[in-house]
């Protein structure tokens, strides 16, 4: 059964159709890529899935539940986490606090209990800290844990945002251009991390412009162009698909 399913999702901005009847499925454990020329609606689709935008038509079904129109925080809590195309962090917080922050809302704890420092609240705090340190270790950020997020290099910030998305052990991870604007060495590192995560069973859905990354990583690729899904298949199939080549390089005569 599909873990995440988009059914005929349509999103319009003032008459401009950003997503036109897009349907897709992502199964548990898969690593799926979403590609397409600029402005083809990839990020819009992510925003629809995560609740930042609500589609005019169609439904998004996650784990058998309709989540269309839910508030973003509720969707996040139900197990879909994401990173942003342009890194977003809590810039004034330390690296470790950023990661802890990414988990605390998932730990059910009443506001009252945490304000008055009940033992159970403290215990959850230390669980979060442990998990944060584990992830920072995995991504090689341990030495920066007390640094403010804004002082990190762009690449380190990207890794940190990945750590934050991983904190709550999401059922599905949406990555919006994880390798954009970073140097080739780091691109390879990020590629390696994504691969490792997927091998550990993490379901990942990613947008990426870097073809080298997408072709190497993904088992299945979905192509959007002008808001429509024009192709879906294995990397090899996509490479030879004339419609995809048209979308990227213009009509072939």
């Amino acid at each position: 059964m599909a873990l995440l399913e988009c059914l005929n999702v349509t999103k319009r901005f003032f008459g401009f159709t950003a997503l036109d009847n897009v349907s897709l499925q992502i199964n548990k454990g898969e690593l799926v890529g979403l590609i397409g020329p600029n402005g083809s609606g990839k990020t819009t689709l992510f925003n629809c899935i995560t609740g930042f935008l609500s589609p005019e038509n169609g439904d998004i079904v996650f784990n058998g539940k309709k989540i269309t129109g839910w508030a973003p925080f509720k969707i996040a809590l139900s197990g879909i986490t994401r990173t942003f195309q342009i890194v977003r962090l809590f810039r004034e917080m330390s690296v470790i606090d950023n990661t802890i922050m990414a988990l605390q809302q998932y730990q059910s704890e009443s506001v009252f209990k945490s304000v008055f420092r009940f033992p159970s609240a403290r215990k959850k705090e230390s669980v979060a800290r442990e998990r944060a340190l584990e992830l920072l270790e995995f991504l090689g950020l341990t030495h920066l844990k007390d640094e403010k997020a804004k002082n990190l290099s762009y690449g380190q910030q990207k890794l940190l945002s990945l750590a934050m998305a991983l904190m709550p052990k999401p059922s599905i991870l949406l990555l919006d251009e994880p390798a954009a604007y970073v140097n080739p060495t780091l691109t390879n590192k990020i590629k390696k991390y994504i691969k490792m995560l997927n091998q550990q069973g993490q379901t990942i859905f990613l947008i990426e412009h870097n073809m080298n990354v997408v072709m190497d990583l993904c088992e299945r690729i979905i192509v959007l162009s002008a808001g429509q899904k024009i192709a879906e298949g294995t990397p090899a199939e996509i490479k030879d698909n004339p419609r995809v080549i048209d979308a990227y390089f213009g009509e072939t005569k």
Partner: protein
Amino acid sequence: MCLIYFILTESYSILIGYLGLFSLSQVAFFGLGAYISALLSLNMGTQFLTNLVVSSIITMFIAFLLGSQLLKLTRHSFAIATLAFMFVVQLITLNWMEVTRGPMGLPHVPRPNIIGIDILSKISYYYLYLAIALVTFVFLYLVVNSRVGRAFISIREDEALANSVGVNCFKYKMIGFLISAFFASVAGTLYVHYTTYISPDIFDLYFVIVTIIIVVIGGGDSLEGVGIAAFAFTAIPEFLRSAQMLRETVYGVLLIVLLIMPESIKKKIKSLWYKKPKGE
């Protein structure tokens, strides 16, 4: 007076400093708390502590109604709408003659009386208000250093990201708004039982500006800084009374100096406070 400002601005810093919500209705809640307490004690003859609790709860309820609509607005419209709320409250107090006596205000508010002990002397006022201020500070300190405080900061830093890590932004904004309205009203009650008189003049932009100045100079997101700023800015004008002519001028110059170098003062205050490195 210092302590009243202390409570008012400390709770204000939750909104401006931690949540990044530029609310201009803090003085309105302050005045509301003062008016409700005054009316309660004049018409119903209730005691200080009852007033404190009842007026704060009524103010919080009003804040809840207001917040449930206004907190959905974007930052700028929120600031303007909260300012508008203050003027609405002012107009009501000015024109509802039967209840508030309009511009004449409400005189002869009784002095506090706790369990039979009348609080009359300045010293006893001081200790009573100091105790309440301390409770306020401890409570706010616990709030901002808990996960709630971290959620506040996350909303200030990046609301979209806060959302995507599962922070219910509206809920936390509401919590912050209610807490600050509650303590603003507490400060209002203390104020009216100290001056024994309240009039619509309390809803003046002057107070709005002074409270904002205190919060901003105190560094916004540091309760200690805001506390020190609150004391400094209510104490300095008093000291300067000895030089009447220069008073306003010196105050103005001081303000400009402080505004030009707020960063360094913030850091100095912080370094005094955080001598030992933060523990794990």
